[in-house]
């Protein structure tokens, strides 16, 4: 837009305010790049408030700079001062006058936050919190409703969709879950053997690892991995669909988004968590066996015998029954948070994070409840 003689030899712009002579000299062409220089000079004039002002314009001014100059001129004239424009008066002033005359309201004032504003903000956050709980209730209700109808007809359960999600959240997660389980059991076997050796009780390392992995570590680590992998994916997928109005589109086509989007994901994760837990348990035991055979010279056959005597009938199941519950918690949190995304990409990021953090929290909280309950019923 800059009508410079040549883009290769730009004439640099300068703006000087001479308070004694009440003169503002603008030399050279002023594009938006030079706006800070101009704005600084205009600011100097503004704070000096001279009785009269001559503006000598030596070059062209782009729209933005012309507008800034015009604002100053109007301010001074409004305060009863004399302002004269001299030299190459920008030809856009007429256009600027024209658009300034349009009645388009005024910019909302940013202003200082008053007490009333703070109070309103507090009320707003309270309202959002309550609305969040209400949304969770509605979410639960609608999900139960669609689960109820899906129960009666397999078509409504959308088996292909469930299978796809099982593949993505289950089969594809096997490698990472397996490696994590192996590493954790190796760590606990190593620490266990070291702590128990002074008492000559190294053999109990086997108990420690097997019971620890089967009851707690296998399922808990799987749940945490799945929360990070799948909980976030659920929230982000549904969140982007919300931002693109895809969820509204489904609803407008007479489809139930809970049936199409939420239920398959929840069902898939509830089915897949036990399977992943079996993988984690197996790898955990393998890791334990490997390390005990290496650390305390326990042959594999001995390990298996010891394992057989150390674990009860219920040890494996005490871990396993928790898996679908954890899966349910993660899937519900992820899908709920995804559906709560509104309006902006920042919301999407925030709620994805919330989904992961909350599902991990809920999993550990539920695990604690299970521990107390199992203790009470001696499971």
């Amino acid at each position, binding site marked *: *837009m*800059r*009508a410079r003689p040549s*883009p290769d030899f730009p004439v640099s712009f300068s703006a000087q305010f001479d308070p004694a002579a009440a003169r503002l000299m603008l030399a050279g062409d002023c*594009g*938006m*790049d030079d*706006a*800070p220089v101009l*704005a600084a000079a*205009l*600011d100097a004039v503004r704070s000096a408030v001279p009785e009269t002002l001559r503006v000598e314009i030596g070059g062209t001014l*782009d*729209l*933005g700079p012309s*507008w*800034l100059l015009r*604002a100053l001129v109007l301010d001074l004239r409004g305060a009863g001062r004399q302002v004269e424009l001299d030299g190459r008066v920008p*030809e*856009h002033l007429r*256009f*600027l006058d024209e*658009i*300034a005359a*349009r009645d*388009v*309201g*005024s*910019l*909302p004032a940013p202003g200082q936050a008053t007490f009333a504003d703070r109070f309103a903000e507090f009320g707003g956050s309270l309202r959002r919190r309550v609305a969040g709980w209400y949304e969770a209730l509605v979410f639960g209700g609608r999900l139960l409703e669609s689960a109820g109808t899906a129960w009666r007809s397999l078509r409504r359960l959308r088996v292909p969709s469930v299978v796809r999600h099982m593949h993505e959240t289950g089969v594809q997660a096997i490698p990472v879950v397996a490696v994590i389980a192996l590493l954790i059991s190796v760590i606990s076997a190593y620490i266990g053997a070291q702590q128990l050796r002074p008492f000559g009780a190294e053999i109990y390392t086997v108990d420690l690892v097997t019971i620890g992995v089967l009851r707690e570590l296998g399922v808990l680590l799987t749940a945490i991995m799945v929360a990070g992998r799948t909980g976030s994916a659920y929230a982000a997928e549904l969140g982007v669909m919300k*931002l693109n109005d895809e969820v509204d589109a489904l609803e407008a086509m007479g489809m139930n988004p809970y049936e199409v989007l939420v239920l398959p994901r929840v069902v898939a994760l509830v089915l897949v968590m036990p399977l992943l837990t079996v993988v984690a348990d197996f790898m955990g035991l393998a890791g334990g066996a490997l390390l005990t055979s290496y650390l305390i010279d326990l042959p594999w056959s001995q390990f298996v015998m010891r394992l057989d005597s150390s674990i009860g009938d219920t040890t494996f199941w005490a871990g396993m029954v928790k898996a679908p519950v954890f899966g349910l918690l993660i899937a519900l949190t992820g899908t709920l948070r995804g559906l709560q995304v*509104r*309006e*902006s*990409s*920042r*919301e999407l990021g925030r709620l994805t994070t919330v989904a992961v953090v909350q599902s991990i929290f809920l999993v550990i909280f539920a695990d604690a409840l299970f521990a107390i309950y199992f203790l009470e019923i001696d499971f």
Partner: protein
Amino acid sequence: MAAVRPLIVVRDIVNRFGAQVVHDGVSFEVMPGEVFGIVGGSGSGKSVLLRTMLGLRRPDAGTVAIEGREITAMDDRELRDVKRRYGVTFQHGALFTSLTVAENVTLPVAEVLDLDEPSLARLLELRLRMVGLPLEAAAKHPAQLSGGMVKRVALARALALDPAILFLDEPTAGLDPIAASAFDELVLYLRDTLRLTIVMVTHDLDTLARTCDRVAVLVDRKVIVDTLEGIVANDHPWIRHYFHGGRGRAVRAAQGDGRGA
């Protein structure tokens, strides 16, 4: 008359997506200070062509030169500096959803220039007024805007740095006729008084007739460039259909008195 050097030179552009050839040897030139329209059927590659001219997409073959500098040969840093001289609007607005309208429009200025708050606010008001947006909209988030308002905020953002070249992808789609004709006037004003060069993809035949000096039609993976009169007289079947169908007739009727109004 002194020979005017073209501002943008597009040479033998080839763009492919897998086996699909979108452009097969597209060449044309855009002169400084002209409004250059690009039309073509849906999926004919208008947006891809625009992205190629902007340096957002490297063509599979061919070159794009802007102001004598070949942007297809530049590295990313050089390209970034050049890009600051353009204003761009995207077909779907591409506003930053987590920022308010005010922040969206101010962002390009605040990002590269060290300006005080009052000046930024004044410039914000200028840009919003230029595109005819109510100033109250400044505090809104993009999700709270109508489609036409999104287009206008995008245009305001594109104008924020007083660019030398404007690239607009379907700027009037979704605007009501009054807003669209205000847009036409703005385009003509920018061209006539600021000698801005505008490259515009549009399906709006009124805008085409009123504002565009020359028109490029994308057909059969190639391009036909001419003045609107020349294009309308062209007897390519698709072009005939486009301009001589029911919607085109109004344009030809308006053409006599509409141009340059």
